[in-house]
């Protein structure tokens, strides 16, 4: 199986800070690839380059779009989502808090519905084409609400959901765009053990049933080790390990960089705000 996403020699510099330094890696479809590393290692920056929020100075990001290859480093953020089929979630949840849960998922299908409504003209006239499309969109939203366990809350305001449910909603919303690659930025952050286990089941089922590639940034090692088919470890913007989870876990360089000198210790305390959370200068 060839790679779904191929990143080659990616470098991203903010003023004097080299956040991502000559990074190359590949991620496959039907696999969960996790990017891990200490805070400030450049994980979120990689995500922002992939999804068009940053424009890397050097490097190529190629996504296999089933027949044609999209070079993401040249595309606008919304085109990456619309044409290349890369969906993402955010470290600090970005749902449409004032809209209902269902509306969040319908907005995610904007481009499909916009075409069906003939750019609002048909929708204004109430053409049956649009009504059918809207019914289909609601059906798809319902399907995903079912999968993330939020059907009961479909008509509630999204901002009123508990934290864990908001995270699941964000994943469902990303899935409603029918992506080829789903990028999740710390989906387990702030979840309790039960919710983490639920998340693991959800991600595995997305991988297995939708057949898409999942790229994951995560600090929660139980989640990472539980579901990753492939692990990439970053430190100071550079890749220090790449391989199957078990092999990486035993890599001395990883243990040193990630867990400090103590083997098997708990995660080090948060030492710095994650680099990616900052805006580019």
């Amino acid at each position: 199986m060839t790679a779904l996403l191929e990143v080659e020699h990616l470098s991203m510099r903010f003023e004097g800070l080299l956040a991502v330094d000559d990074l190359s890696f590949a991620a496959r479809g039907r696999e969960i690839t996790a990017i891990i590393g200490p805070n400030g290692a450049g994980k979120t920056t990689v995500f922002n380059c992939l999804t068009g929020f940053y424009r890397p100075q050097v490097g190529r990001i190629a996504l296999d779009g089933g027949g044609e290859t999209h070079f993401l480093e040249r595309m606008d953020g919304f085109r990456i989502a619309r044409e290349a089929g890369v969906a993402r979630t955010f470290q600090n949840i970005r749902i449409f808090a004032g809209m209902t849960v269902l509306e969040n998922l319908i907005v995610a299908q904007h481009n499909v519905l916009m075409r069906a409504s003939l750019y609002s003209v048909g929708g204004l006239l109430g053409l049956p084409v649009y009504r059918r499309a809207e019914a289909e969109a609601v059906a798809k939203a319902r399907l995903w609400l079912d999968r993330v366990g939020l059907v009961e809350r479909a008509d509630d305001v999204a901002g009123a959901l508990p934290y864990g449910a908001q995270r699941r909603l964000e994943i469902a919303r990303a899935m409603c765009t029918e992506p080829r690659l789903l990028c999740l930025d710390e989906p387990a952050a702030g979840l309790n053990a039960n919710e983490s286990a639920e998340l693991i089941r959800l991600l595995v089922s997305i991988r297995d049933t939708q057949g898409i590639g999942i790229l994951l940034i995560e600090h929660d090692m139980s989640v990472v080790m539980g579901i990753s088919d492939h692990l990439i470890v970053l430190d100071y913007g550079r890749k220090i390990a790449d391989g199957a989870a078990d092999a990486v876990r035993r890599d001395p360089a990883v243990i040193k960089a990630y867990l400090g000198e103590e083997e098997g210790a708990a995660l080090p305390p948060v030492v710095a705000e994650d680099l990616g959370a900052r805006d580019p200068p």
Partner: protein
Amino acid sequence: MAAERRAAPARMSLLDPLKDAVVAAAIALALALPLVGFETVDTGSPGTRVATRFGWVAIGVGAVFLGRLALSLARRSGLWRRRAAPRPQARTTTAQTHAIRLAGPLLVLFAAALPFLPFSSRYLVDLATTVLIYIMLGWGLNVVVGLAGLLDLGYVAFYAVGAYSFALVARWFGLTFWEALPVSGLLAASFGLILGFPVLRLRGDYLAIVTLGFGEMVRIILTNWSQVTGGPNGINGIPRPSFLGMPFLPRAPEGAVTFSQFFGIPFSPTQRIVFLYFVILALALITNLFTLRLRRLPIGRAWEALREDEIACRALGIDPTKVKLSAFAIGAMLGGFAGAFFATRQGFISPESFTFQESATILAIVVLGGMGSQMGVVLAAVVLVTLPEFGRAFAEFRMLLFGAAMVAIMVWRPRGLLAQRAPSLRLARPAAEAT
């Protein structure tokens, strides 16, 4: 007053309110001395002299001192508690929503019957016409500010473009109101796009400043481009709308039949006023249906999503440029229609009708009404337009009352008069009726 409060547990309790009241009185003194304390009096012979009014200052400062003291004592005793933050419960409740839903059709019926009600008068119908113009403008601006969340302080520019384009098109090409109406809307919409492009990257305060500048630019161009716009003198002789080609005139011009002749009723100037009222009522209702419908279409939901989170919109493949431009263009178009109506109603327009004051009033209608609420706009427009009318008896204190009323509304209903967002669609049943 002090004696009652001695029971308060802390011994310092009396000193703090006193200090507080002294500070308030000092501020009042500093403000009142230059504002109230001095007055120029006409001496009769050419010239003026300065008179002092320290008595008034003393009364004012004394009132502030006592009022402040009473207020903080009352607050201390728990009679009057300050609300720390706007409470989320300040939203309209479900029961109120049902009432609002019922109120919509009733209001329309009332509006349609208004000119024929026994207490109706020419003045009342005229006032109602003004209210409806503001309602229409409010609904138009609501698309930009309430739905798309783009703070536009120059909305009056589109109103002006609509009015002037109707006046000029009518003068140059001899088009009637109904023929020129779409032209006005389209021109205003293209001005919306012109404004939209440079401000695409801006949000919040920065956007507000640029739109404010745009509004002023349009007004200044209208004032100075005398050859086309007539400059400060404006344009007069704007054609009045006709009823299916029948003018509202006492005597028919060559080869035409007037409205009164056709129906065989005696001519009365009220007929035109009532007709104009029904024109704006129809335009406003169409605007309402149009925006309500748009809200439930993908474009409307994208506007709201953009207001909530632009970054998330981009991550979902929504082109923020198109969404913003469409909001600007549609908001501007509705403003343009209202402008064309304004021009035909007045028969005369000048840049003076399109000052920042107008933009501020329209924005106030949207914000006071409750952002995004259609019925809220109606309520706020009625309040804001009729309040100064009722206040006429108070002459110069009219604006003071007006300001106090606005502050009061924002204190008691910080999210607007009617702040209930109806979902654009529901899972259980088809799209719910929006307010």
